[in-house]
């Protein structure tokens, strides 16, 4: 169990350097540079707001649709971008895998940390939107942080599994794009949970992102928090992380041979 944390101590500086590289290199040769961190979520927000509040008109409990959406879209964007980049991360670091020994999980971890920085910047935009729409957050909004930590556990678990699996079979990276698209619409991000047919709600809630997304909105806007599905999401997240980590460590020894 303690070995989970060793890379953060023994390879702290490497982790930091790889994370910096993730962030710096991404926007180096672009005109607006780091502004892309903000442009992406804003553009997504504009598109989804148009489609789902002007065309479909989802009920959002008196909260402006943009705010309703943003509160779930930001954590989702962290989830999706981390998983998509992490899946390719080992393959794109093939030269390192073949030459230098260090705990391999440092690579997907650095991806997640890089995306976490993006997330924090995008959160600033969220606050600007709150001011603009004159929405005040509920006092329980600080609980967002522990819930987001659970999501980080889930994200890292999925990332570890897919990164290692992609090294064995490159099909995974194509499959991941599809899975994430399906997962996005299988979570209450652009629409409220109340629109899911009652018959299917129990199955729908098996998706750990449902409990997390609902919990974000509950604590931010002061709805009653459904603890049972948050508990379910937490258990699933921890189990997925354990499985992902176990699988990653199990195949780690052959990384250099198969890459």
């Amino acid at each position, binding site marked *: 169990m303690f070995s989970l944390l060793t890379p953060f101590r023994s390879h702290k*500086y490497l982790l930091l350097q790889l994370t*910096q590289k993730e962030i710096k290199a991404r926007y180096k*040769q672009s005109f607006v540079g780091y502004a892309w961190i903000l442009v992406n979520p804003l553009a997504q927000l504009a598109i989804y707001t148009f489609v789902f509040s002007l065309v479909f008109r989802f009920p959002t409990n008196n909260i402006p649709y943009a705010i309703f959406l943003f509160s779930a879209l930001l954590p989702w964007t962290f989830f999706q971008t981390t998983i998509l980049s992490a899946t390719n991360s080992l393959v794109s670091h093939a030269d390192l895998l073949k*030459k*230098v020994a260090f705990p391999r999980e440092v690579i997907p971890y650095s991806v997640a940390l890089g995306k976490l920085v993006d997330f924090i910047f995008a959160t600033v935009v969220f606050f600007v939107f709150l001011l603009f729409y004159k929405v005040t957050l509920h006092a329980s909004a600080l609980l967002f942080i522990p819930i987001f930590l659970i999501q980080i556990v889930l994200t890292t678990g999925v990332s570890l599994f897919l990164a290692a699996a992609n090294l064995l079979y490159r099909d995974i990276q194509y499959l991941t794009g599809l899975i994430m698209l399906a997962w996005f619409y299988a979570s209450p991000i652009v629409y409220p949970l109340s629109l899911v047919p009652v018959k299917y709600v129990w199955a729908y809630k098996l998706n750990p992102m449902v409990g997390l997304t609902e919990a974000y909105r509950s604590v931010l806007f002061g709805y009653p928090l459904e603890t049972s599905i948050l508990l379910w999401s937490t258990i699933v997240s921890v189990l997925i992380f354990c499985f992902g980590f176990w699988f990653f460590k199990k195949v780690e020894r052959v990384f*250099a*041979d198969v890459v």
Partner: protein
Amino acid sequence: MQASIIFKNVKKEFLLQEDRTFKEFLPSLLSGKGWATTKEVLHEISFTISQGETVALVGKNGAGKSTILKLIAGVTYPSSGLVAVQGQVAPLIELGAGFHHELSGYENIFLNAAILGMHKKEIELCLSDIIAFSELEEYLHVPLKKYSTGMQMRLAFSIAIHTPAPILLVDEVLAVGDADFQKKCLRRLTEIKNTGDKVIVFVSHDEKSVVNFCERAILLENGEVVKDSIPSKIFELYLSNSQ
């Protein structure tokens, strides 16, 4: 700390996966056939390298030199047998693993040194030495992609040569860079060697640099140790075998 490398009956097999997709994997799984064949690249190799030694690995392509370096570096593991490496390893294998082309030379020094296992303080301590050795002061803040191959090699070599790691793996690195820089590298490697507490494993096809630099050489052929002796004898055998 004592630095040493011990190989005891080391066998290494690779899986020959022809194509890494489910398309091939599924039918062969259903038919119960093995979907990957194995190829043995090292057959029960044994040797010991102790502290202070500078040893060259000599052999044709495919003889197993790179596999041995990977085993020493700890990125791959033997199929059977024992590999015991004492001391941190700094690989100078195909220099510049982990360089990022969009980042500047300066940023790459920190990135690359971190990859080689150095901490921030250690890097800062020898930063000026690294920069001076590379002779790239004026290009430090230029993105690495603007560097020529020779310049990249110079930077990579300068970083690697300053690691405190007691085991250095040097793989054909001297093939790049101009003659002056090659000489400088060899001089620097000789200095390191003369401190007597390092282990240097050297892979090269260049007879002159091996004979000048190493006091011991191991001749490999098809994954087996053919001879373990002084470099001049090894090259005599190697050259007569290849004719």
